[in-house]
């Protein structure tokens, strides 16, 4: 019987079928961070249990860490306690930790691929919904809750209902100024925030094949924003070229053997998908969200929609509520909406290619007088690479703040938050009410679009640059 990429990974990891469609699934790589793990480790200790495979577990601090000066202690005592707890737990259970002093520290979904720890065909879990990022390598990577984190620590397995298969076929050539972020935002706008609930999305089509490894990560990262359990892209030469020579990637003879193994992780011709959606990349322009879910998104050339025109009462209510929160009026052109803050960062868009794309816009220009703009690299290695290329100077000369790695203003757990009513052009993944700070208003977009908005002081079509 023909199988999808996801079916193959699933089948290769079933330890035991527990019931129809429910399996005990083996986990190859477990990523751990400071916010969703302390209760899991406490549970292990209380029950006198151990971590079954510490060498398959990697930890870092990212969610609540300050992105300013690293030589000083963390000033928030509660955040410091969480960071300390992870350090203690990693030591006690023998787990490798990339802490604040480590040159390998960074957002968990940036450092996994960077290390070459993320590999095709793997099952990867983390107590974070953006774990789908790793699916870009042809892995089944999913976010889990803290109880499941504890379960994986203790057993190296996860009990899961098998999700259904959804094919998102993206074809055609992207126009200039249109990025991977625009493709995924357009797709979420099309299928909705629950459009892929209960499914794993496999992204296929020539427009997906044409994406770089980092662009694929951006696409897979936001699968959860369409409700998907995970997103994935079958590995190919782009994947192998990215992985070869990375510290945790197989070396020498093991590399050759791995390549043979990885080639099997693809969907058979004619494999069955429960749901199929299509997107023509040529029709997609730069996208900007106008509301409080990632599905409330439009082309930058469009106007704020009128809730009264929407199909259902639920949608009308949700859109009206969103516009009230966002302080926006139906019919207003998106271009020209003034902004106060710009955030270049997050596991969606803070890798080196993202910083290069933004720097190309910013070079030789200056941030608008009323705007405060922040660049938070996805990892300390990305930061070092950018500095080697002189990108830090491009940003700081233009009036951006240049920070250390972390999740930062994507979720505002550290000091990087929006004030009430402040409007932000952000390269992150969620525009929920209060996500970046209570009363803060978030517009999601690509790095190039956010950089252009920083310079102009308002939302702008980057294609006009």
């Amino acid at each position, binding site marked *: 019987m023909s199988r999808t990429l996801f079916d193959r990974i699933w089948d290769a990891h079933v330890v035991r079928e527990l019931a129809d469609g429910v399996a005990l699934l083996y986990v190859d790589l477990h990523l751990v961070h400071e916010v969703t793990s302390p209760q899991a480790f406490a549970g292990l200790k209380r029950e006198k*249990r151990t971590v079954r495979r510490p060498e398959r577990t990697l930890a870092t601090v990212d969610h609540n860490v300050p992105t300013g000066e690293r030589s000083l202690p963390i000033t928030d005592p509660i955040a410091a306690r969480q960071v300390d*707890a992870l350090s203690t737990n990693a030591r006690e259970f023998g787990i490798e930790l990339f802490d604040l002093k480590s040159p390998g520290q960074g957002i968990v979904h940036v450092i996994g691929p960077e290390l070459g720890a993320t590999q095709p065909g793997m099952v990867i879990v983390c107590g974070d919904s953006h774990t789908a990022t790793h699916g870009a390598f042809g892995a089944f990577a999913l976010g889990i809750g803290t109880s499941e984190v504890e379960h994986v620590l203790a057993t190296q397995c996860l009990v899961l209902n098998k999700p259904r298969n959804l094919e998102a076929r993206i074809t055609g050539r992207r126009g200039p100024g249109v990025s991977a972020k625009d493709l995924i935002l357009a797709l979420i706008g099309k299928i909705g925030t629950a459009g892929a609930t209960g499914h794993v999305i496999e992204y296929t089509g020539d427009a997906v094949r044409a994406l770089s490894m980092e662009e694929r990560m951006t696409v897979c990262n936001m699968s959860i924003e369409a409700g998907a359990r995970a997103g994935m892209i079958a590995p190919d030469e782009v994947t192998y070229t990215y992985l070869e020579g990375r510290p945790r990637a197989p070396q020498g003879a093991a590399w050759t053997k791995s390549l043979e193994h990885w080639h099997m992780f693809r969907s058979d011709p004619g494999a069955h998908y429960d749901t199929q959606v299509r997107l023509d990349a040529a029709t997609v322009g730069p996208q900007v969200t106008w509301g409080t879910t990632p599905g409330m998104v439009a082309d930058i050339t469009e106007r704020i929609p009128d809730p009264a025109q929407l199909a259902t009462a639920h949608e009308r209510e949700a859109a009206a509520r969103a516009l009230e929160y966002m302080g926006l009026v139906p019919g207003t052109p998106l271009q020209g909406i003034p902004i106060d803050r710009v955030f270049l960062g997050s596991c969606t868009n803070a890798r080196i290619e993202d910083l290069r794309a933004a720097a190309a816009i910013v070079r030789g220009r200056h941030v608008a007088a009323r705007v405060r703009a922040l660049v938070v690299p996805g990892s300390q290695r990305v930061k070092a690479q950018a500095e080697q290329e002189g990108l830090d100077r491009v940003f700081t000369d233009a009036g951006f703040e240049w920070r250390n790695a972390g999740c930062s203003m994507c979720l505002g757990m550290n000091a990087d938050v929006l004030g009430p009513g402040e409007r932000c052009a952000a390269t992150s993944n969620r525009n929920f009410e209060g996500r970046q700070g209570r009363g803060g208003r978030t517009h999601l977009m690509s790095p190039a679009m956010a950089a252009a908005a920083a310079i102009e002081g308002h939302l702008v079509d980057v294609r006009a640059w």
Partner: protein
Amino acid sequence: MVTAFVRHRGRAVTLPRRDVDTDQIIPKQFLKGVERTGYGPALFYDWRYRPDGSPDPAFELNSPGAEGATILITGPNFGCGSSREHAVWALAQYGFRAIVAPSFADIFTANCYRNGLLPVRLALSEVDALIRSTEGLHEIVVDLERQVISDDRGFTASFTADAYGRDLLLRGVDEIGRTLLEEPSIAAYERSHP
């Protein structure tokens, strides 16, 4: 250990919104704890309290009679967004035992089953009918054994719970303890997949 759920009778409160994300259920500033308890007061914090810290009378949970409600009736895609289990801890510690909605996010659902909180999925029309029937905050019975939800005004609907999650809830299972009994299978898998 999961708190068992077999049958629950309680008062309902409605929150007729779609896409209620876990950032709303529990905002980020409450995620810095290292304990599993103490999250009830933070539930829906930014909606429940005004910036000065006083309760916002316009929010449904602050309406007269909502106090003591143990069943939440809400819109589609409840619990979307962040995987934070703190959202489920906050709902459960506030006192909710069941959430009724047309659809739930996947990670949220998994978290519910591991914390004695039952997600009840009904058709949108059934949720609307239940909301109309519940005006006046009367009591509802959620029966997980029979997979039926009903009230004493003639509303009744059946639902299908996730089979594995239902088993966890009905029996109040220690899931990790149970999986550890699978040790021979896990070890065999590891030997065949070095």
